[in-house]
């Protein structure tokens, strides 16, 4: 990376920014999906499993069909199926959605590993990249501006979700369902239907997030590919106070933290490599400690999540 050297220390920042644009994508989709689910008053802790299922499905379908776009759709579909399954289970009487979510992590990752066995090694057709940096001479900046279409789509989904929550009847009903289910029911709003729909769409988004892991450089499937991003994204929603736009911002922060280790290494700073690589995990811990307090209740938390104590 001579180009980074030519920019000096700025090169590291450019690399981190580029990494943030790439690495934030799974966080964006999972956190938006989780945000939608939690607005309806449900928690989907199984996002990690759904992310892995999405990654494996996208890879397999892209590999078999030759079309990465088909892989993307398949990942969203499989994610949606998992969401529907979780929603169905949690609507049964006496089912705790935290326990059901943890079961989904195990189920989703187990299934992904099982079907993914035959796909370890080869490289599937990848999604194209959009080159925003055409004509920029500096190779480092240029590399950072080669952006996945999923990033652009993710931004659109965040704004669309924000619009839906604030400006549509469906969004208003969904927020009422998550905030005060009994009140919503008394106004004739179908609480169960809203929750099932939100959980399903939320999980489909996580499936799309998973497809980024295998349909973008380096584009291979491996069992450790998600690295807990599905779980961190769930924590990120709390930090983002259940706002889609803040989820977007927080995802960029996490993507940047994830790029810290590799960027420093490529700039020749390899001391504490593993510490820097752990920065998303540390960031999660620090943010959780800062945003949760024994004496304060969270602002903006959907009422039915707050009341579970």
């Amino acid at each position, binding site marked *: 990376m001579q180009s980074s050297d030519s920019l000096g220390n700025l090169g590291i920042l450019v690399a981190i920014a580029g990494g943030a644009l790439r690495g934030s994508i799974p966080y964006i989709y999972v956190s938006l999906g989780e945000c939608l689910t939690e607005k309806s008053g449900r928690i989907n802790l199984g996002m990690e499993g759904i992310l892995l299922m999405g990654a494996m499905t996208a890879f397999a379908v892209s590999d078999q069909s030759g079309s990465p776009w088909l892989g993307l759709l398949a990942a969203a579909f499989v994610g949606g199926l998992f969401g529907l399954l979780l929603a169905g289970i949690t609507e049964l009487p006496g089912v705790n959605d935290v326990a059901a979510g943890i079961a989904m992590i195990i189920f989703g990752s187990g299934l992904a590993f099982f079907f993914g066995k035959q796909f370890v090694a080869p490289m599937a057709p990848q999604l194209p990249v959009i080159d925003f940096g055409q004509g920029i001479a500096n190779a480092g900046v240029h590399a950072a501006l080669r952006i996945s279409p999923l990033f652009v789509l993710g931004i659109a989904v965040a704004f669309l979700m924000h619009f839906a929550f604030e400006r*549509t009847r469906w969004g*208003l009903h969904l*927020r009422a369902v998550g*905030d*005060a289910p*009994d009140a919503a029911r008394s*106004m004739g709003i179908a609480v169960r239907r809203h929750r099932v729909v939100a959980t399903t769409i939320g999980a489909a988004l996580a499936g799309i997030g998973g497809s980024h892991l295998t349909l973008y450089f380096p584009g291979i499937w491996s069992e450790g590919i998600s690295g807990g991003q599905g779980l961190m994204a769930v924590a990120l929603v709390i930090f983002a106070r259940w706002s889609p736009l803040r989820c977007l911002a927080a995802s960029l922060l996490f993507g940047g933290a994830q790029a810290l280790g590799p960027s420093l290494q490529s700039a020749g700073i390899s001391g504490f490599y593993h510490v820097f690589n752990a920065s998303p995990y540390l960031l999660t811990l620090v943010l959780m400690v800062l945003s949760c307090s024994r004496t304060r*209740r969270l602002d903006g938390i959907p009422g039915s999540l707050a009341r579970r104590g």
Partner: protein
Amino acid sequence: MHGPARVEAICIGKTFGPVRALEGVNLTVPSGTFHAIVGENGAGKSTLAKCLLGFYRPDEGEVRLDGVPVSTPAEARRAGLGMVFQHFTLAPSLTVAENLVLARTDLPAILNWKKEKERLRTFLEHAPFQINLEDRVEHLAAGQKQKVEILKQLYLETRVLILDEPTSVLTPAEADEVMTVLNALVRKEALSVILITHKLREVMAFADDVTVLRRGRWVASCSVGSTSIPEISSLMVGNAPLREQSARTDMTAGGAVLEIQNLSVLGDHGLPAVKDLSLTLKAGEILGIAGVSGNGQRELVQAIGGQRDIASGEVRVAGKPFHGTRADIRECGVFTLPEEPLQNATVPGMSVAQNIALRTFDQAPTAKLGFLLDRGAIRRAATAAVERFSIRTPSIDTPIRNLSGGNVQRAVLARDLGARPPKIMVVANPCFGLDFAATGFVHNQLVELRNGGGSVLLVSEDLDELMKIADRIVVMSDGRIAHESTRAELDLAVVGRYMGGHE
């Protein structure tokens, strides 16, 4: 369809399992009148209201609105029946405007907030009270929430408004304001009102007619002008003998036993709920803390009981710092009985006997060698307590959550006042939701503790209760003590003003 409607309930019967909740109840509310339904807890008032609204389908009988039968919530809504519940049905993290818009049944898929707000402002111009549309509901005081509930019904063009104990969370002044507005709406022929209440003063002041229920049966209906409070109360209670009220022995209060010094406590949102509050409880007195709920009473009780961290200040018992640990509680003899005892003072799934043993299970005689439970001793103690406090329970092994509210309260009092009565009792709203007999019982127990030289700190939203048994009353408003007076010099109007935070 606008304007008030006539409601008839004909020979309504409703059974839940073995319980006959309603039997042959008749109710007629002529169009444009204000009708009160009174009765003790468990008399079937709320069940009747839910039948009117279609939430419950009666086993027998029929509900008619202007002669047309109504049997589902959707039919009731379309016909113009609306209800303000005892517990708020607003979404707390949504704004007032969002809550009002949410209630609309003809909402378009994409909201035009400009148009919606315009519509709301036009509506508010003619509304009986004003409210800021942009406020989040969770930041509103109870009285304001109640107003939003009523505004919501007016916005929906409700023709018959049913209110279930709407003033239980309001100050006397707020309650009167709400009642006056409802009365005026009825006079203006805007709607008919059905009010479920146990406050007979409100019935006499604002209603046209009153119907009395007792144990699920219709007892009487008459116009308010032709009856009186004593007559209604005797109809409500029937000929059940009321227990003699324990006489308050005249005694001068002794020295300070519980001192709260400059106490500050944070609430759930991290904002100060109790602010630099100082208070002294003396031996042999009942000190009442009046106030509208949400003014820091809950946090104060939790802080005294050790359930909530103290931000600054101190609680001292008999001159020594008190931290609410089990050892402190035992040594100092300070028991705390929070409000809603089933959730806050019992283990709902454990048996009556085990719950009664919670204070003493780790001591002789119910514990052997300091750690082995003696089940025989626990059962004997529970049997004695059930006898002495007349707890109505199928057996001492029944989970306590299966008991009625009054009997849960009796069981908790049996635990706290039975074997080893405390020196100090901190009690919050002990009679909330209890009927006459259970209320009288609780009051007697507290007065007897005081007569025996004990002290009671009684936090209550019910001024009548405080005036009946407290020796001294302070008013808590916005986390501070706003006013203090002795029993003899108490002026209800002044106390009401301080409760509202107007002085």
